[in-house]
């Protein structure tokens, strides 16, 4: 009872904080007499949505597609590699230090190279998203799979349990909280990666649109693009959170 009224008041406060920001934005623009090209009003920002030349649907769809493709590729590759490492210690000892070093490369710096390799379009931008998101997913999954108590493995091995049983009954469910923690970090990074890709070279997408309207100083449209990019990120992050809620016991979740 107390706990639920506590969550309720927290939800109310969270909504209030967002509304307050919106109100502050509105007041700042209308009272402060700021030029529109510096800081458009909320109404002007919404109005930008009705500018048909900007192809909002298409551009939002393209950016979302780039992000999702890159993200799911990162998830598949990250988890699979981490798994292979638990299969073979030699494989892990060989590749893990290498991956830790590769993780130190600022992935954004790879942008121009990725364009040389993959030309421009949806795929290279997905690769940008992928290259940023894959590391946290891989590293946290590998860590989670390694975290299994050795005595628990003894218990299963004493019963001649198979590798597959160890994996499905103990390692994977034990690693899920870690996998999700990597997936959450990865979701945020994937969005950033795709947008950087679009900034570098593209002919569609919200990042591309931002560069176009920057030339004409259509700041309301830039604001709108940022909001839409954020919303794509929120949708992705939210789906991950929802899935985590369904799959991971509350006391096992990692922030």
């Amino acid at each position, binding site marked *: 009872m107390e706990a639920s009224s506590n969550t309720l008041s927290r939800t109310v406060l969270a909504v209030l904080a967002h509304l307050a920001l919106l109100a502050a934005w509105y007041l700042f623009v209308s009272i402060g007499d700021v030029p529109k090209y510096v800081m458009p009003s909320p109404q002007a920002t919404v109005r930008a949505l009705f500018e048909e030349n900007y192809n909002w649907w298409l551009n939002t769809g393209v950016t979302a597609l780039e992000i999702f493709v890159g993200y799911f590729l990162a998830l598949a590759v990250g988890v699979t590699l981490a798994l292979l490492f638990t299969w073979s210690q030699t494989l892990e000892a060989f590749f893990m230090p290498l991956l830790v070093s590769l993780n130190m490369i600022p992935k954004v710096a790879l942008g121009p190279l990725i364009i040389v390799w993959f030309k421009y379009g949806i795929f290279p931008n997905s690769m940008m998203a992928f290259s940023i998101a894959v590391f946290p997913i891989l590293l946290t999954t590998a860590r989670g799979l390694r975290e299994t108590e050795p005595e628990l493995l003894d218990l*299963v091995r004493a019963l001649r349990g198979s590798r597959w049983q160890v994996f499905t009954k103990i390692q994977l469910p034990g690693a899920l909280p870690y996998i999700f923690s990597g997936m959450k970090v990865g979701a945020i990074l994937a969005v950033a990666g795709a947008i950087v890709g679009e900034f570098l070279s593209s002919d569609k997408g919200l990042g591309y649109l931002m560069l176009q309207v920057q030339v004409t100083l259509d700041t309301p449209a830039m604001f709108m693009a940022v909001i839409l990019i954020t919303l794509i990120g929120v949708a992705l992050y939210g789906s991950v959170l929802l899935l985590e809620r369904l799959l991971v*016991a509350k006391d096992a979740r990692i922030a």
Partner: protein
Amino acid sequence: MTESFIHLAGVSKAYRRGGETHLAISDATFDVMPGELVSLVGPSGCGKSTLLKVLAGLHPQDSGEVRIGSSTHAFDPARDVGMVFQAPLLLKWRRILQNVLLPAEILGLPMAEARERGRALLRLVGLEGSEDKYPYELSGGMQQRAAIARALVHDPKLVLMDEPFGALDALTREKMNLELLRIWKESGKTILFVTHGISEAVFLGTRVIVMTAGPARMADNIPIELPRPRTLDMKTHEMFGEYTRRIYRLLGME
């Protein structure tokens, strides 16, 4: 005379670390009769856990003879070992009954039957009503009871316990000692109980095997002739004191 259930003769086991070999057990020789509860006591690092791993078939010994099972008491190494460790090691995403059923799942036993047995075992260990709870909802002592039920669910002939009460507070530990004696009596299992608590070893065991470290070695094998059922006030008996004094002496603490 009945045949022993476990027979160890001259068993040794070394770990290799870098270029060095480190002797974890040397010349372990003892027998365990069917249905005995034998305590293994010794300072940490003397090879107690290693000995249990050899018995569980997790590590082969380097030399010596290990025989488990006899003509009257068959033993299948793949399914007749139950294990309990110092940490309960329950899977935190599974409810208590599901945790208890883990060995049955691994062995592919018929699940309906196993579930019945799991419930009965939870009653036996005093956890009736906690079947659907998650591990974090139970105290340390209760989690360890669940771990004991898990070790029994596939009806193993041999239960290996490695300092199972080492992480519990003193009062809970005494209580769990009494519970273990009751569970042992009702289940009729052969139990090997590792501890570094000397009075716990004497209180529980039909026999106490004393091991010493540096170098690892078996120091003595003492039949405990205290009356049964054991009660806590026996800890103040003359005889109890003599047993514990003898073990302290063997461990060089007197």
